[in-house]
């Protein structure tokens, strides 16, 4: 409840933030603070310097862009949950945003902070991976993009260099006619996902033309369910087809599964199949 001493710098621009990160070794970015401050309060994290980017207006808000939407890194979960643009282009992201934490957390927590924290139990990384989003990053050498699937590199580890700033996330529109869903098994205390499953099913002529299925909470990073996707492709999305496809997720979870006192690795794996099935059912019902 009493963080260790820090040096605090408020950045007025992305360029200034990059400069401050470069000038202060071990500095951490502070956005909404809802991933970092809880760790600092327990002194599980004690960065020497915090670079507060929370007031950089350019990093806030949702805008339409070519083929989809761009979401500023500082956009809060509440804003995403309530955004008409998100609703039009990628409603599944709003569905997930509304399930993050609790109302006060959603008011302050940002999508950029959440994905950068790279907690596999977070909701948005799972959904963004399923959506095939792109993370836009600015560093000393300029801008670059990282695919959502490549952004989390391990438990609480991401692909950002020490002096890079995640500025926005580009989300392609979910094709019209496609159905998407995110279903979550919330931990009763932490409200993080014990298992979260995102599914996007594109349907044409009664069969599934493509599927994107990602599971969070089970492995150290969001896990793409390639076997499930393969089983769905060309299927009629009947109940039995969805059953069979969901069962295939076991073959996609080969990494080191998460395990804790509430849910063992074995249970999480089993629940991955159950929640993938539920996500598929919800997505299929919304398709077409």
């Amino acid at each position, binding site marked *: 409840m009493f963080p260790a*001493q820090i040096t605090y710098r408020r950045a007025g621009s992305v360029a200034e933030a990059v400069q401050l990160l470069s000038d202060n070794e071990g500095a951490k970015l502070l956005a909404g603070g809802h991933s970092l401050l809880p760790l600092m309060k327990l002194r599980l994290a004690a960065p020497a310097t915090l670079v507060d980017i929370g007031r950089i207006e350019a990093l806030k808000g949702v805008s339409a862009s070519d083929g989809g939407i761009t979401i500023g890194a500082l956009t809060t979960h509440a804003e995403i949950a309530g955004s008409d643009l998100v609703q039009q282009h990628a409603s599944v992201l709003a569905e997930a945003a509304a399930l993050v934490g609790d109302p006060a957390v959603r008011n302050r927590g940002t999508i950029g902070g959440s994905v950068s924290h790279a907690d596999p139990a977070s909701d948005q990384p799972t959904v963004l991976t399923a959506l095939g989003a792109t993370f836009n990053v600015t560093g000393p050498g300029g801008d670059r993009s990282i695919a959502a699937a490549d952004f989390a590199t391990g438990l609480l580890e991401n692909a950002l260099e020490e002096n890079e700033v995640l500025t926005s996330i580009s989300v392609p529109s979910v094709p019209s006619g496609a159905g998407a869903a995110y279903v979550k098994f919330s931990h009763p*205390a932490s409200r993080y996902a014990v298992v979260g499953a995102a599914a996007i099913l594109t349907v044409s002529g009664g069969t599934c033309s493509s599927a994107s299925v990602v599971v969070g909470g089970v492995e150290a990073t969001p896990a793409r369910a390639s076997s499930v996707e393969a089983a769905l492709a060309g299927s009629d999305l009947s109940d039995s087809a969805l059953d069979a496809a969901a069962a295939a997720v076991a073959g996609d979870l080969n990494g080191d599964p998460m395990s804790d006192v509430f849910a063992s690795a074995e249970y999480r794996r089993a629940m991955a199949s159950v929640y993938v099935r539920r996500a598929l059912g919800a997505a299929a019902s919304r398709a077409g």
Partner: protein
Amino acid sequence: MTTRIFGSGIRRREDPRLITGRASYTDDIKLPGMLHAAILRSPYAHANITSIDASGAASQPGVVAVYTGADTDGVLNGMPCAWLIPGSDLKTPAHPAIAKDKVRYVGDAVAVVVAETRYQAEDALEHIAVDYEPLGVVVSPKAAAQDGAPQLHEDVPNNIAFTWAVAGGDADAAFADAAVTVSDTITLQRLIANPMEPRSALAQWNAPMGELTLWNTSQNPHIARFLTCVVTGVPEHKIRVIAPEVGGGFGSKIPYYPDEAITSFCAMKLGVPVKWTETRSENYQITTQGRDHIEEVEMAATSDGVITGLRTTVYAGMGGYLSTASPGIPTILHGLMYSGPYNIPNISGTIYGVFNNGCPVDAYRGAGRPEATNLLERLVDLVAAAVGQDPAEVRRKNLIPKFENGHDVATGITYDSGDYEAALDSALSAAGYESLRAEQAQARADGRCVGVGVSSYVEICGLGPSQVAGAVGFQGGLWESAIVRFHPTGKVHVMIGSSPHGQGEETTFAQIIASEVGVDVDDVDVIHGDTDNTPMGWGTYGSRTTAVSGAAVAVAVRKIKDKSRALAAHLLEAAPEDIEYEDGRFFVRGSPDQHKTIQDIALMANVAWNMPEGMEPGLEASAFYDPPNFTYPFGAHVAVVEVDPETGRIDLQRYVAVDDCGPQINPMIVEGQVHGGIVQGVGPALWEGAVYDDDGQLVTGSMLDYALPRADLLPELEVHSNTTPSPHHPLGVKGIGEAGTIASTPTVYNAVMDALRPLGVTRVDMPLTPEKVWRAINDARNGG
């Protein structure tokens, strides 16, 4: 109007300060020059301390002092245990406020830093170097009692602090003759009380006067004063303990803790006020927990489901040390309730109190009685299953028939009054039990796992006759006192020794006064929590405040009424026996116009211009009320759940409660107590449990892992009541603070087992987390 105030659900008189943020809890108090303490805690569950070097901390910014256990030598006495149960070979090993040589649980205090700010004090803790030599750790209370287990205290073989037995009838014979026996091994897990307000202590030492003032999050400031005296050596009359606003306790604010002693010690050493407030993570490590039972239990019955016997062997975890009341909880408050609401002629129980490497265990809402009710209700359901009868019907045939003035049970205690079958009938009817069973049959046919759980309970509360307290080793009395003081304008102060902290007695006690002598409720203020301006009392716990303290208020105000009648007679020039009373007026029989109001009387008594010969001035009365017996509230609850067999997740769909706590002074407050109690009992059934790993580390160390009930996880509770007065209480009231918690854990558990029985699942350890339920279903399917 005023005569009807008893029984009226008026809104609470304490609320305005609470809803506006103007109430002062201990941590809200700031004194001039106040310093802040932070306590270094052992990261090991069991270790020898080989060295402590605190010098690094002393030079940190803002640090005023650093103390270790050595500094308290000869200054602080050990922490006392205050419930010395007789006939149990009880061991009370030393419990220093600050550990010196050895630590026995994660969180044991090792050193304290006092600094200008709390942040600085926390910083400095990191500069205290402690060398530990880790020792073997034992967490399970049963494992701790076995030969070869790590020994926590040198003089306590097998860690057994006490062995206590209860017996009535001939249990062994009953089992030998039984047509049906059922058994189970029940783990009633450790629970963390989680009052929303963390504990806090603020100590101020007035050296010239030798006076210590302690603001403290206490449910019983008078006990805290007494124990502060024992530990610090400051004479009792020089200690003032103030429990200001207290944000819940649920038993965890009964004990006198090392932290209070340490804070007082620091203030006395430094001569300035020192405040310590626990963080929530600290609370999870050090603030006494509840339950921690491993119970090997069995029940004997006839082939028709008539219960003939109960046998138990219970290993009750005590944690690293005995807390203030620990030994009394799994014994007096548990074993004596083994008959429950049933006729069980033959009972035998053995309870081992066992030291283990965890936070000390003490009273937690219900304290001993939830453990008793839980095991009884689970066994009754097993009997019902064994004889193939409806669990509600098996209960009905075993319930003690209605009685109005005393019923003896095999454990040797005497229940006051009860109508258990009426409560069961009310609950079944309110729940629509028959249609629930029909719906359940349909649901099962549809492949859904729906379950209905029923429980009956009786509890012992209104603690209690002081003579009994002495006989069972409680190192104090259990009476309560009240002073009722009428001011000249007819306004009233009531000073009580108990210390409500959310239960609403500022309102209900005003209602008692108002209904007895006809003043307006708003003309009565109830003062509590400060040992300097309240009479002696033993505190608020055990559903005893209304039952005992409320009786003291009633007795005191009736003395006021008697004096008022005499004074009215004098003023009206009539004989006292000709004076009648109604709605705040004393009048000559047959001449209601000739009257004196209670306000007239209060004014005259206070100015004393015209008093009868020999009558003292003033209108004030005090009463010391020592109850002749405990009170025994009871009830029956019904829960409906649906289990998702794919995930093991449980949806609590309905909860119906019928409680009988006698006449209700304020039904709105009673209902609130029932709501909160039910939810605190649902918690351990479904979500709550403190988990220590094999190294004695608390795995559920924060609110991120310890799952407390939240609004969105609960159904609308359907709460009803019956009214069976206590025969021995001046108002007939019994107490309601713990009833919901006692009943709801087994009700929900039984509902879940009822849902799972067709799948072959007969037991699952609590809490019934999804994974455990899912595993049980899978194991049963796989023939396990």
